[in-house]
């Protein structure tokens, strides 16, 4: 099992390396000159040359890539002598715009993204899975049809539309919520909640639809299984049959999908954060792209990919823990 885990982590690292390399190359086939970008508006040819030297842009691309990867694991020093700049582990370079180390930017933005992702996840799990279970248990009923119609609507909602409509109604027209802003959960819990509520609803509307549909399909499938019939044949009350025998097998695949979705969201909800102007990782990415801040784009891509890749590993392990057939192997 440990060997397996190490192998999986190794494969995850390999995937990240490939993603890193691909993203890295894209900026070198790009028409923009990174040194020009880093230099900014007030720029002299000498200054550009200096930056070029400092960033190591004169060395061949594979070599630059190697020093970038080395920097992630061991830190690196840009330039030499008096102009040398120390970039400690895990070095992702400096933002062209602000000159702040990219890793610091990411760490400072993570709490906002995490607040959005986790809160939305709680909301959509409650609503989506709940609605799906009820729909499956009352298959064909009025409730089932309404819930599934709503779910289909939910998955069809473009997030920026939901976001703008919410903001227009709740903030502009009815004035029940303030404009969202970045507030720490610990500093001002009420303000945090008020700011996060709209992003949560906007995201949850989409995901709750997906989860409601998934839960319903899974549960209907499980309810037709022979072991559910056995549970009924034992004379168990229907509630126990559903809770104990049907829900567990239903939730196992949902947990794995959930892990993947949460992983992806922790790496930044780009559109949601942009629309609400919340400074999370996604907003960081959007801003970096607008200003061609390549080190930041690269950093965010890697950061988000890392969440997805590791969520993948966690989900596989979780599956093994949840399903005794995998945990204990075949007989």
């Amino acid at each position, binding site marked *: 099992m440990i060997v397996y885990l190490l192998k999986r982590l190794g494969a995850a690292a390999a*995937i990240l390396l490939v993603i890193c390399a691909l993203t890295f190359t894209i900026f070198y086939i790009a028409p923009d000159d990174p040194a020009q970008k880093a230099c900014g508006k007030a720029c002299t040819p000498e200054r550009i040359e200096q930056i070029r030297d400092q960033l190591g842009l004169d060395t061949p691309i594979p070599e630059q890539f190697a020093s970038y990867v080395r920097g992630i694991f061991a830190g690196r020093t840009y330039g030499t002598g008096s102009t040398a700049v120390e970039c400690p582990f895990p070095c992702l370079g400096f933002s062209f715009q602000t000159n702040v180390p990219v890793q610091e930017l990411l760490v400072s933005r993570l709490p906002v993204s995490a607040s959005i992702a986790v809160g939305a996840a709680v909301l959509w799990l409650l609503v989506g899975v709940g609605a799906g279970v009820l729909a499956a248990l009352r298959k064909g009923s009025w409730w089932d049809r309404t819930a599934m119609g709503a779910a289909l609507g939910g998955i069809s909602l473009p997030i920026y539309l939901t976001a*703008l409509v919410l903001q227009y109604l709740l903030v502009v027209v009815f004035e029940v919520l303030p404009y969202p802003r970045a507030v720490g959960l610990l500093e001002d819990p009420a303000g945090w909640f008020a700011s996060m509520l709209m992003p949560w609803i906007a995201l949850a509307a989409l995901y709750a639809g997906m989860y409601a549909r998934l839960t319903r399909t899974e549960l209907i499938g499980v309810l037709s299984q022979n072991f559910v019939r056995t549970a009924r044949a034992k004379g168990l009350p229907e509630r126990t049959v559903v809770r104990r025998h049907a829900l567990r097998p239903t939730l196992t695949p949902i947990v794995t999908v959930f892990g993947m979705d949460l992983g992806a969201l922790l*790496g930044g909800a*780009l559109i949601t954060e942009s629309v609400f102007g919340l400074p999370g990782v996604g907003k960081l990415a959007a801003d970096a792209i607008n200003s061609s801040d390549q080190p930041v784009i690269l950093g965010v891509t890697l950061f988000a*990919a890392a969440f997805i890749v590791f969520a993948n590993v966690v989900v596989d392990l979780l599956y093994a823990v949840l399903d005794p057939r995998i945990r204990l192997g075949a007989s």
Partner: protein
Amino acid sequence: MALGAPLITALTGQSPTEFHPEAIDPALGGLPKGPWGGISAEHPLGVEPATGRDVLARVVWGARLSLLISLLATLLATTIGTVLGLVAGFQGGWADMVIGRLMDLLMSFPSLIFMIALMSVAPDGNRELMLVAVLGLFGWPYIGRIVRGQAMALAGREFVEAARVLGATRRAILFREVLPNLTGPILVVATLSIPGYIATEAGLSFLGVGVRPPTPSWGQMIASAVPWYAADPVYFLVPGLFLLVTVLAFNVVGDALGDLR
């Protein structure tokens, strides 16, 4: 009706093009004249703030582009996904491992960020084709994974063994025996992936890296409505609702196809 909606918009899209009827603009802030975003007989869905371009014309033209891009992307993703999924699922072993890894890799990409990064450095040439390529590239593994699973299940069926006993070549088995059994599921998955591409394309344009400004697109219209949304909600509601209805329509059709099977 939902099925017809995208078709109708595409048809009427032939006639009006972009215009700049300055007359509708009041000098004050550039807001459209009249209530509801300047809805009038001339401009049934109002006009754009600041420029006064006709919203209906832009929405309809945007529809053409959005649908074209997403349909082409679906075609591309479905073709790649079907072929590679079939090979991976049926051949197993070495081919499956390589294709499987490739799918893992592509699905591990934070695809939106990556697409944005890619589109932001992409040359200005043919951005529409570029969008199709990027959407297809990141979209095929989702179809490929489903086809692979189905192909694996079918590979164990006795009719495939029967074909092997009869001396059928691998290719004949794949395309004559296995593929016809997959057209149903592939059609459903493809239909259900169209709205995803529409939404992603709109998202990319919304973020400013999709179709470039003179050409209209829904995402781009919504994006340009953001600064105005408090004063002129109709301007973002119109393209937004068009987008919603179109996506919903494809989802309903896909869902119905899935139920039929």
